[in-house]
């Protein structure tokens, strides 16, 4: 009985991602004893928080059977928007957050309309959106963003509770749990699952599948828009396209966590553990002082190995 339970735990991708993350953390501590501290735990949690915003949105889109390559670009754009509007003025916080969420939602909605109704492949449309947004940023910021977020907002994000839980992480977790509850408890979530699993069947069962798909993109955009604001608050120093790398990282986090790229059946817990795992891996590589080229090679190789173990497509004959 126990052996069987152990076996099923080992084949559960989401748990394995967490186990790997912990293992990596201890390996890092073994190699660099000074890295074994609450500070490095806090670093992992804080860095995971931003990725968690991106990958939660990404998870919703991937569940619908699509993919969103504009996540990073939306984040970068709203980060620029946030600092440009805020300019250090704390009273603007709520309007800024709302504006950025609306902006992300709007961009996501356009993606959704294009994918669901005009039937442009998601990969292409969101790729185009992302390049257009990247070219858009220098126009409204004038080459590079000059403003900052308010010091109170930045402080709230980097404050440490219990010595090692960053405020940023608390907010990220709160949103993550809200989204998971939304996806598991509401009708929309159940429908989204069906649409992703089998589009034709969902249409036949009377679901407005196209609308559901469209909303999934809009929702992904909204999460990315929010991620951009908090990212701006946490990192403070911004450039054009600061968060562009989060697109691929978010996809990797979702997939490493066990959600299939083919749509349907999201692994909610896996998205969280996958995020932690990716961030721990990058912290591990930077702590043991590997040079950037080696770090790239290990990142790529790890991604491929993890995919081979956990996220293979079914063979054609099945």
């Amino acid at each position, binding site marked *: 009985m126990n052996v069987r339970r152990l076996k099923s735990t080992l084949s559960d991708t989401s748990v394995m991602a967490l186990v790997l993350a912990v293992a990596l953390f201890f390996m890092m501590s073994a190699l660099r004893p000074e890295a074994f501290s609450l500070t490095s735990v806090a670093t992992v949690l804080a860095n995971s928080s931003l990725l968690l915003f991106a990958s939660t949105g990404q998870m919703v889109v991937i569940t619908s059977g699509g993919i969103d390559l504009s996540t990073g670009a939306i984040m970068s754009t709203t980060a620029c928007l946030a600092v440009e509007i805020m300019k250090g003025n704390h009273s603007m916080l709520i309007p800024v957050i709302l504006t950025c969420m609306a902006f992300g939602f709007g961009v996501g909605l356009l993606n959704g309309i294009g994918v669901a109704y*005009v039937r442009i492949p998601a990969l292409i449309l969101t790729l185009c959106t992302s390049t257009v947004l990247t070219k858009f940023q220098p126009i409204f910021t004038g080459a590079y963003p000059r403003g900052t977020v308010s010091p109170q907002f930045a402080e709230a994000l980097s404050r440490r509770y219990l010595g090692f839980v960053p405020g940023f992480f608390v907010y990220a977790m709160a949103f993550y749990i809200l989204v998971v509850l939304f996806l598991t408890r509401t009708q929309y979530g159940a429908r989204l699952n069906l649409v992703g699993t089998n589009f034709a069947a969902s249409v036949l069962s009377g679901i407005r599948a196209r609308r559901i798909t469209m909303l999934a993109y809009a929702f992904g955009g909204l999460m990315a828009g929010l991620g951009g604001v908090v990212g701006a608050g946490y990192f403070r120093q911004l450039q054009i396209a600061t968060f562009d790398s989060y697109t691929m990282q978010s996809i990797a986090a979702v997939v490493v966590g066990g959600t299939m790229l083919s749509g349907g059946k999201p692994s909610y817990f896996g998205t969280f553990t996958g995020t932690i795992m990716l961030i721990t891996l990058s912290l591990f590589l930077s702590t043991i002082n590997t040079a950037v080229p080696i770090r790239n*090679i290990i990142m790529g190789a790890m991604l491929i190995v993890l995919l081979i173990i956990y996220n293979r497509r079914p063979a054609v004959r099945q």
Partner: protein
Amino acid sequence: MNGSTLCLGAHLERFKRKPEYMGTVLILAIVLLNILMQGTAFFKPETMQTLFSTALPLVILTMAQVAVLISGNIDLSTGITMSFVNVFAVMMPKNQPWLPMWSAYVIAFLLAILVGFVNGVLVGVFRIPPMLATYGMSFIIRGVNLLISDRPQGNVPRELWRVYQGNTLGIPNSLFLLVLLVLAWQYIRGCQATKEMYALGGDEKATYLTGISTVKTTIRAFTLSGFLVGIAGLAWTLMLASSQPISGDVKTLQSIAAALIGGVLITGGWGTMLCGVLGAFFMVLVNNATSYMFTQFIPSLIPGFSVSTYYQDFAGQIITMLGIVLTIAVSNNAKRRVNPSPARGRKGESEAK
């Protein structure tokens, strides 16, 4: 394409159903726009020479992407592999003096084919989603590139790049290379192996059921892509005349966009190398046209007009996006008209892409 005048209408009707239709229309439109703005200056040998020699790496890279797209896959590592060929060929003879220069070029080319092959194995044998497998690969290659050389440096012998960037009888030398590649494709297009690639992209399950090895076909498509990436890398090297470790990475997404503008469908099984060539030239010419428009044409109409280059990029990007959306709509339509039944039955599946 240009048959006898009697049945021109029928020819046109048939051409409309070809994958190249939209790409041809778009490229004619953009060439026309360029001619309208620049006049005959557009056809000067120097202009043509610069245009072709700078565009060629992207064009060949797009052809490499087309080979993979036809088989229903995607390759995100092409651009960085192109840079890898560049860095290896230029820097290895400097780092390892025993290595003769010509052999570095040959080895770099062969390694690009190997990268394509490994991608094919990862996707075909291990069944990793192609987008993520090649994304992981692009990280590895980026690391290798930076190991060989961490900054732009080195130089290519003058005799070599002078040939590439030169003219013969007023025709750019780089154009000859392109024509050669397109002719080679026209030759292999009818082969059994190529047809299997189309079949795989069109319907994986049906292909498997007819007894074709889907694994071998996937590997073949990626290897062909690697071969073309190798050539693109050599052209890139001759164009840059130096080595740049990671600058080729941005070309990956450009080449995918170019292939789609040319009329290749990302769902697979539709499109030819010519589509890729047309699409890539469209991208290059759009940039050419927008930069000319913003720096010379509009200021000549409205004195004192000047905006930052950001607007120029933005406008170019919007035109590209519109081109893609238009082409996809038309290609979807054309594909449905050519083979109506299977496409309709599997609506849900094709949307999952």
